[in-house]
């Protein structure tokens, strides 16, 4: 278990030694700021709810860029070989990498806290809804990252990993969005699988255990699959 920390530390260092981390943070800050100001102008409500709804699209595009290098790069350069022949378990490697990407994701969304100060300055925001939104955002990040990690583990090509990841996340988002408001077993099933519905609850200031379970269990399941993929090399 100690190796999780070792892997985590190396990955975080690697992120901040490359320009990718800074570019991602900058892009996210620009777009989330834009949506915040536009939505504030339209709705005149002191809430993050509407701007964060749009932010989901940005996150679906940026998160796979965070995760794309995690395994694909090691597969390409061959560093996966010394890594996997060191006395570390596959789970430690996967989880260490997952945590590092999740940490970067949280660093990326942290600057949006500035908007809360702004909201307080112009009015009286609903702090409960804001806090639950952030909890939802962090949980959703975990899910997005585990999807990106899975895609990265099956390829040598970072660009391929990013593109497949983005497509997968957008599909997950769209099936929820498109079926919201529609009735029927199929739609409710799609709504359950999609991320949108679950996350919307959080933005309303409600922390429903069903939504928490959705994110946590979906993430855990995906991480389990990633461990299996990484492990499969040992018995293929």
């Amino acid at each position: 278990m100690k190796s999780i920390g070792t892997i985590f530390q190396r990955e975080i260092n690697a992120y901040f030694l490359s320009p990718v981390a800074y570019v991602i943070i900058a892009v996210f800050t620009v777009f989330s700021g834009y949506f915040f100001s536009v939505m504030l102008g339209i709705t005149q409500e002191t809430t993050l709810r509407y701007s964060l709804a749009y932010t989901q699209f940005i996150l679906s595009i940026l998160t796979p860029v965070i995760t794309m290098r995690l395994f694909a790069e090691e597969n390409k350069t061959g560093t996966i070989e010394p890594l996997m022949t060191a006395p570390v378990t596959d789970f430690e490697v996967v989880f260490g990498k997952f945590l590092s990407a999740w940490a970067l994701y949280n660093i990326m969304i942290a600057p949006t806290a500035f908007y809360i100060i702004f909201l307080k300055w112009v009015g009286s925001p609903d702090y409960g809804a804001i806090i639950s939104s952030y909890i939802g955002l962090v949980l959703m990040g975990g899910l997005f990252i585990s999807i990106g990690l899975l895609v990265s583990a099956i390829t040598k090509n970072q660009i391929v990993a990013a593109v497949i990841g983005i497509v997968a996340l957008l599909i997950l988002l769209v099936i929820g969005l498109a079926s919201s408001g529609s009735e029927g077993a199929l739609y409710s099933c799609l709504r359950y699988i999609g991320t949108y519905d679950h996350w919307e609850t959080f933005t309303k200031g409600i922390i429903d255990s069903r939504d928490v379970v959705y994110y946590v269990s979906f993430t855990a399941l995906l991480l389990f699959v990633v461990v299996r993929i990484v492990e499969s090399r040992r018995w293929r």
Partner: protein
Amino acid sequence: MIKVEHLSKRYAEVYAVNDISFEVHEGEILGLLGPNGAGKTTTMRILTCYMPATSGTATVAGYDVFRESLKVRKEIGYLPENVPLYPEMRVKEYLSFRAKLKKLPYRERKMKIAECIEKCRIADVQNQIIGTLSKGYRQRVGLADSLVHDPKILILDEPTIGLDPNQIRQVRQLIKELGEKHTILLSTHILPEVEMLCGRVIIVNKGKIVAMDTTSNLGSQFRGGDNIVLEIRGNGEKIKDALSNIKGVKKVVWQDNGPVSNFAVEAEKGVDIRDDIFSSIVKNNGIIREMKRASITLEEIFHHITTQEKEVVV
């Protein structure tokens, strides 16, 4: 220390490693010699638990590579082919990361890293970014990594590939020193390297072991009989007949150059005919200008075995 039994690895239709068995004893340096695509890297990857075998078993330090992979990996230091390293890290930082990964206790870490840096002569680049290192230095960083946790067994895949002659000498010297404390399995396709470093050598070709013996034995095993090369002044015709009649001579090749003739005399295995050659030439009024025993090098054995020629031509 390492025991391999009937190991095979199949990729789709081709066998990269085909039913090989061998053993590496404690404290020895064993060379795995073979041409490109012989299956050296594949064998090493199986032994280091990077990939599984299709069939057969292998134990390293008493642990099964498939079932006790974690324990095996603790005991080995592995230098992969082409030495993959993280380009953005600094040398010392990388070694520290690897030492942590290999569970080296905090107290020992600093000392062991310093030791490896010194041993592998990378002190002058220890704060350099790995991506900017030359091939030779990368190789040494890789070697330092494989040593850092002081493993019992070192598995080195072509440790001197891509180095300049000076560095090759240094790295070989280093491996030789390491051989005093570690059990080493190394692969190469450079023959003099094996002759210089290894007590024993396994020659592989197309996934199969074609020869396995001590380095010196391999020579005599494939030499057949001695080959004596002569330059003689005198009557070639007469001398040729005389040589052919010596007991133990298998074949005489005569090249007539006028007053001076060149001969190549092949003897039967294990027979020393040099004395008889001398006296019979003297008897026939010949003058020996040169006589030497052509010894066969590993190079020739290697070529012979891997190309499956029937006879070694010296």
